[in-house]
């Protein structure tokens, strides 16, 4: 992929302005960070999460897929969102390498989100609204990264 689009996104740095797409990405990543922290805390306290939209949160969050090596998946998610947020903020202030890393990271996150959607649909057969929100955030971040690549390229 050409870097033309990326340059366009970040050209505003020269004028000490903050790049809009990375800033938007940082804000979206904050939503994912909040969601993941919420789920991580609920995992450790064991309190039932409100689940009025999809109804399957307990089944999903208590499933064997909700942990990797004893660590809740949501904690990995929180770490990933924080890293994505940090990369986006650094990119917003002109660091192009960080924006490239951001693009790579959110691609991996989006692919993993698709896998988790598959697990919810076909393995557990229940959906968790918080997991769906997280998937939506990942896909949005991926879309922003993709958009910045192809923007006017």
């Amino acid at each position: 992929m050409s870097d033309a689009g990326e340059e366009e996104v970040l050209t505003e740095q020269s004028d000490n302005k903050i790049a809009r797409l990375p800033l938007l990405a940082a804000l979206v990543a904050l939503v994912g960070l909040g969601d993941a922290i919420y789920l991580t805390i609920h995992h450790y306290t064991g309190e039932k999460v409100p689940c009025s939209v999809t109804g399957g949160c307990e089944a999903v969050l208590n499933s064997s897929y909700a942990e990797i090596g004893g660590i809740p998946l949501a904690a990995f998610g929180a770490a990933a969102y924080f890293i994505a947020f940090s990369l986006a903020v650094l990119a917003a202030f002109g660091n192009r390498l960080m924006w490239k890393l951001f693009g790579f990271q959110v691609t991996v996150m989006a692919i993993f989100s698709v896998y988790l959607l598959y697990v919810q649909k076909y393995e557990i057969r229940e959906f968790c609204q918080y997991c769906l929100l997280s998937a939506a955030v990942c896909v949005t971040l991926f879309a922003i990264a993709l958009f910045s690549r192809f923007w006017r390229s």
Partner: protein
Amino acid sequence: MSNEKKNSNNSNNSSLPLVIIGLVLIAAIGGGWWLYNKNSTSSKSGNTAVANRAANTARTPPPNAPIGAQPPNLLGSPNAVVTVEEFADFQCPTCGVMHPKMKELTSIYGSRIKFIFRNYPLAIPAHDKAYDAAVAAEAAGLQGRFWDMQNLLFTNQAAWSSNPDYRKVWEEYASKIGLDVEKFKNDMAGLNAKSRVDADLQRGRALNLSSTPSIFINGVSIPFEQMNIETMRQIIDAELQKGQSNQQGQTTSGAPTSAAPTQSNTAANSAPKK
């Protein structure tokens, strides 16, 4: 002059993102800590998520495991070749989620399976009413309405779990399903219902159960990710087929052989058949 201004702007810009990232990190840790404390104190729960998580290793129950409450709470046919045995806790949210699935299974298979419900109230702070709820279900069972009470307890789990006057709520359920409420209250206080719960608990402990729901199909533990209708149907269908071919084998050969399923490694089969 303009260069100096540019440099000063650059240095501000280079530290600003780090300041933002640092602030968000502090907010994330602080927010998480606040949420953790809030949840811990409000629910007094600490272990539900951990306790509910099914240990996914298949268990081989000891052949001499206690047989549980007799007669067991049973749906379907006592002579069916496939036994589905569920250990559940009335305050376990996942058991509540599983409840309609188990109902669906029992209605799909009817007399082709033997479904046994075992009480396995977990002794954890978050499940402080689970043992009493199991006793309530058994007390209703002493009047022949176990399944009605079991259904009400699961479908209204959130309502009575959070109600400090939960016994009153159960008495309302008892009245709703047509029980003699005075007898129900006496049975809840008496030993009959409790001893049935204790017998199920002993059986569950002998199987080393640490989480609910735990489901065994012909004595083999079902991992949590397989606790869905389709997978359990596949397992049950396979067991039914196996049972059928065993029966055919026996009728053609005229004698039971080693092809019969082993009794020693099956949890549900160690319960005496009625």
